């Protein structure tokens, strides 16, 4: 330890701590065992006076390391905020007095608990340092947008509107994407206020296609540089200092630097050859995309059918063609907007081919959600579009247009319906790059046929061309969630990304229409700007925003085993030419999975390291084998398990007096060494609590919980070499709602210890 460190401890006696515990003894512990040079007690540490006391100790007595023993680290965060020092907190309220009964029998063990938590907090802070910027960060506020469709153009315009420069890269020779091809647009609006119910009222009609204006706006914007006929052939670096090669068809390459990236690579149409029974070979059976071209070609005149140019007098829309189906080669999802498109297109015929043109939409569940959606359904009905709940068997050729054979589910009869034109509602397939984890953990626990189904679903979805050509150790493109969509896995955090500073937007994330894509693009632009700015300050991205710490490693100790580069959930770590890890800190999310992965313990963070936790474990006072006071080490994820234990105490649940709980950033950061050290120093049991893993993982760092489980699977061997019972170490998935279960899991370990006996390793 460097000498310029000065340690100060503060013990709050409020909220009953003073009544339930011997504060004098706590202070002694802090000074004697915790080596706190200064130690104060205060009857309400979170009060103005209390906070001032801490402030003064820092300012006047030069305290650099502060240990606060009061309530949970989740409480009074605003009051106990001293960014200029290293700080640790001992949880005496939720963690001790609220978790234990107020009885004479319990008094001694409760005091033991409190003393240990003081020792642990002192040990932790002793090995912490105040994080400071590494200087690696750069501030680059230029944003790269890949894809020149509606999503990309919106992202570019919204970014520019906030005052940031943009480079917009489009593969084809023109901006506008699919939307530019549409005859008209689905109205994004609901009926205006005051419109009554009725049969002929003012409901939204298909909108004029205004994409051309948008293209013009992009081209006119001096903050936006457009690269047509171009692709991104190489992307390296990290948020704040991305470097991208933008290469034209002719092969000319320009290298530009960016703060962050938005991927708006869009979608492609589902290939109808996978559904031959729907007559895709018949010229008069067209896709909803092809129909847009027919309608546009007709101008405002009647739409003609492809086979013989006859004016269409009857048209049938077959919804969900090859969608929402588990059949071979079909899409297991659907585009979600197919029914809105069909309504819009049926209205083309009413407007251009005459009101008596027969338009029938064969749907299964009509999906016109929200306010605008339901009003558009009404609008279509007003135009006398006919909606039939029908199950389409097949589409046959009848020499005249085509015949749709379906089961009318309402009239409960089989119908052969001839029409001049049949329109298939084909799904949207995401334009993602290759998935770095093609057959990833989401297949864990799947049966073989499930795996094959899953794989085929992937194959139908995944494109081979890379979009970003990232030079990342873990693959060239954004990881995918499902069916090729590069979406976030988190409901609360739709812009959570596994490649920091790179945000997907639009139909590459989830099937969506123009309006949704524009909203989505605006959100992605927000996140990109934010990522660039935070990277410039060396501050972490979600969820540890504001964390300035970053991983560093002792080169001399590194064995180049590559575990950190392989296991990092965010693909942050590359390998340099000498095959040493390269941390790219602004890609790093500070979860510590690399630290947990490192077998030689050379990776650490300023404020979170092998020692900050390891020393806490060692600091616990270990009663001898015959004391009948076992010690159970609980390492709890700070995101879910630790709050669950807090809430358990708040709602009057008891927590075992033998437990010593250490919050960890993520179970993925747990080093095997902590486990073995704990065992060696005489702990009787270890309970690890992480978030749900597997397909529906809840781990906020994606794979941390999974990695921990894999590592700990091997801990059994280590234990048997120490010839300790393997059941002394368990890993549980704990949700934040497990306020009754979490304490029970600790209790269960207590019972295990009773069964197998105390650890012989107590010295």
């Amino acid at each position: 330890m460097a000498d310029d460190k000065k340690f100060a401890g503060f013990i709050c006696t409020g909220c009953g701590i003073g009544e339930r515990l011997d504060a004098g003894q706590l202070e002694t512990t802090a000074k004697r065992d915790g080596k706190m040079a200064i130690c104060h007690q205060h009857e309400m540490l979170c009060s103005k006076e209390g906070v001032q006391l801490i402030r003064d100790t820092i300012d006047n007595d030069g305290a650099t390391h502060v240990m606060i023993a009061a309530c949970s680290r989740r409480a009074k965060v605003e009051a106990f905020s001293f960014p200029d020092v290293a700080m640790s907190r001992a949880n005496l309220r939720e963690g001790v007095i609220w978790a234990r009964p107020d009885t004479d029998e319990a008094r001694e063990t409760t005091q033991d608990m409190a003393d240990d938590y003081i020792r642990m907090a002192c040990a932790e802070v002793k090995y912490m340092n105040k994080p400071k910027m590494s200087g690696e960060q750069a501030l680059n506020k230029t944003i790269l947008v890949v894809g020149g469709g509606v999503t990309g153009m919106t992202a570019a315009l919204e970014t520019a509107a906030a005052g940031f420069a943009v480079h917009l890269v489009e593969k084809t020779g023109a901006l506008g994407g699919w939307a530019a091809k549409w005859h008209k647009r689905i109205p994004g609006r609901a009926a205006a206020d005051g419109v009554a119910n009725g049969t002929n009222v003012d409901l939204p009609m298909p909108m004029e296609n205004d994409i051309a204006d948008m293209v013009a706006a992009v081209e006119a914007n001096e903050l936006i540089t457009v690269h047509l006929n171009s692709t991104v052939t190489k992307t390296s670096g990290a948020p704040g200092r991305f470097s991208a090669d933008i290469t034209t068809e002719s092969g000319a390459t320009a290298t530009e630097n960016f703060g962050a990236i938005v991927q708006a690579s869009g979608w492609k149409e589902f290939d109808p050859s996978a559904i031959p029974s729907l007559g895709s070979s018949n010229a008069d059976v067209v896709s909803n995309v092809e129909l847009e071209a027919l309608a546009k070609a007709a101008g405002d005149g009647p739409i003609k059918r492809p086979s013989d140019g006859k004016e269409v007098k009857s048209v049938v829309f077959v919804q969900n063609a090859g969608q929402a189906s588990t059949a071979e080669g079909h899409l297991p999802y659907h585009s979600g907007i197919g029914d809105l498109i069909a309504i819009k297109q049926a209205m083309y015929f009413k407007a251009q081919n005459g009101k008596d043109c027969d338009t029938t939409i064969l749907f299964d569940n009509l999906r016109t959600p929200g306010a605008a959606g339901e009003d558009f359904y009404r609008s279509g009905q007003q135009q006398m579009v006919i909606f039939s709940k029908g199950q389409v068997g097949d589409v046959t050729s009848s020499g005249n247009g085509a015949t749709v054979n379906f089961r009318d589910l309402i009239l409960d009869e089989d119908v052969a319906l001839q029409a001049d034109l049949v329109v298939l509602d084909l799904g949207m397939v995401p334009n993602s790059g290759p998935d770095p984890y093609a057959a990833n953990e989401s297949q864990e626990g799947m049966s073989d046929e499930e795996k094959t189904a899953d794989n085929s679903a992937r194959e139908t979805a995944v494109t081979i061309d890379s979009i970003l050509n990232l030079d990342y150790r873990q693959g060239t493109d954004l990881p995918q969630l499902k069916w090729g969509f590069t979406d976030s896995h988190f409901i609360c955090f739709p812009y959570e990304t596994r490649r920091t500073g790179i945000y997907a937007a639009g139909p590459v994330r989830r099937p969506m229409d123009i309006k949704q894509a524009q909203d989505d693009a605006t959100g992605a632009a927000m996140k990109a700007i934010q990522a660039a700015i935070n990277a410039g300050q060396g501050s972490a991205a979600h969820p540890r925003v504001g964390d300035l710490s970053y991983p560093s490693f002792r080169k001399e100790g590194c064995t180049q085993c590559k575990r950190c580069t392989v296991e990092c959930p965010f693909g942050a770590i590359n390998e340099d030419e000498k095959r040493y890890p390269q941390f790219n800190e602004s890609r790093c999310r500070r979860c510590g999975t690399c630290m947990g992965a490192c077998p030689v313990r050379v990776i650490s963070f300023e404020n979170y390291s092998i020692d900050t936790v390891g020393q806490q474990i060692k600091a616990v006072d270990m009663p001898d084998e015959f004391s009948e006071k076992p010690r159970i080490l609980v390492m709890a994820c700070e995101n879910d398990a630790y709050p669950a234990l807090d809430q358990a105490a708040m709602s009057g649940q008891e927590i075992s007096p033998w437990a010593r709980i250490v919050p960890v950033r993520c179970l993925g950061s747990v080093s095997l060494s902590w486990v073995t050290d704990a065992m060696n120093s005489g702990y009787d049991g270890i309970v690890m609590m992480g978030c749900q893993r597997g397909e529906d993982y809840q781990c906020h760092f994606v794979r941390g919980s999974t990695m921990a489980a894999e590592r700990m699977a091997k801990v059994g061997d280590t234990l048997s070499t120490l010839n300790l019972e393997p059941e002394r170490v368990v890993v549980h998935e704990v949700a934040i709602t497990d306020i009754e279960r979490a304490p029970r899991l600790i209790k269960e370990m207590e019972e295990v210890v009773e069964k197998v006996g105390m650890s012989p390793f107590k010295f």
Partner: protein
Amino acid sequence: MTEVVATNETILVVGGGISGMTAALEAAETGKKVVLVEKRPYLGGRVSQLYKYFPKLCHPTCGLEINQRRAKMNPNLTIITMAEVTNIEGEAGAYTATVKLAPRFVNDNCTGCGDCGKAVEAEFDDEYNYGMSKRKGAYLPHVMAHPMQYVIDPRIIGTDDAQKAKAACKYDAVDLDMTEREIKFPAGAVIWATGWQPYDAAKIQPYGYDRFDNVITNVEFERMADPKGPTGGKIVRKDGKEAKNVAFIQCAGSRDRNHLYHCSRICCMASLKQTHYVVDAYDDAQVTIYYIDIRAIDRFEDFYQTVRAMDNVKFVKSKVANVITDKEGNPICRGVDTEGYHRYENTHDLVVLATGMEPSVAKGDFPVDIVINREGFIEPDAANGGVFAAGSASDALDVNRAVQHATGAALKAIQVVNRVARAEA
């Protein structure tokens, strides 16, 4: 709190539900000064009252914990609870907001120790549990409430209970003399995230929510499934009987000119999710879902298919005509299955109305000029100036879409305040 420091570069966020929190945090984490005004005594809004999310069946409080930690740690964010925006004047880049602060009767000294709650005797319906349980007159709204400060129910002011609460507090955090106050402060842009409320089920007379104990709403059912909820997570009726045969009535109030014109989007998925609750609770569960269209949008389709495949779950394409009850109080759904015309009169243990979302601000009640549609949702419109809707104030949205929308709203607001900054620079 409440002496707000703000300028024309400050962003005002109205509503502290998940959309408002998201918009506020995204802006604050981009270095903008943000003032968040929430009507309730705590953040999180409706989401804090949900047990699980579809389609992952994960827990909303998990994300709430993260968002609250983000909020606690961010110096750019000022949070004002129990406050309502009563007026917004001015124009984009130069608004003045008037905010009415309701008295909490507890100040920032509160440590959340709970002594006042123990001291007070009076009990009231617990809003957090939609009145399905009671809470004290001095209370912490829920175990994760942020700010973690108690609230004193105005109804006990002037009673001995109020004095007991004051006496019990060692930190003189109880201030019975607090009164309603009004504050004014500037803001460059406004994000309107007032969200939604469940449609009043009593208005749907044919289903007898106001007459029958065993007809409840989906939001109440959500509390019922929560281990922290009024029944400790048990799916039971008021009379204690286990509710194993449960009916879900879709479009209860939605897609209906008698109630809400719009489709509330989330109710189908919510009922599919809640079907899991029932099936997980009882091996011999029976679930019937009465629907017009099952709207499992895009990638949610497989969630629908999983439930569809359960052999103890029945889907009936029919808007239930009305609900009656038998002598034991079992609700009976009457109607016609329109797929081929079959009349039914099905007896269930419990009927759950999939009540829809309506905007929580009534059409006439916006304190600022804003363009709304027939359903009362805010439409994006140049006429709204520097006021931007976020989340369910703009349409019936699920959480994921609401947060996505709110993130975009943050950028819209930032564009305005950045223009102000450039102008002032």
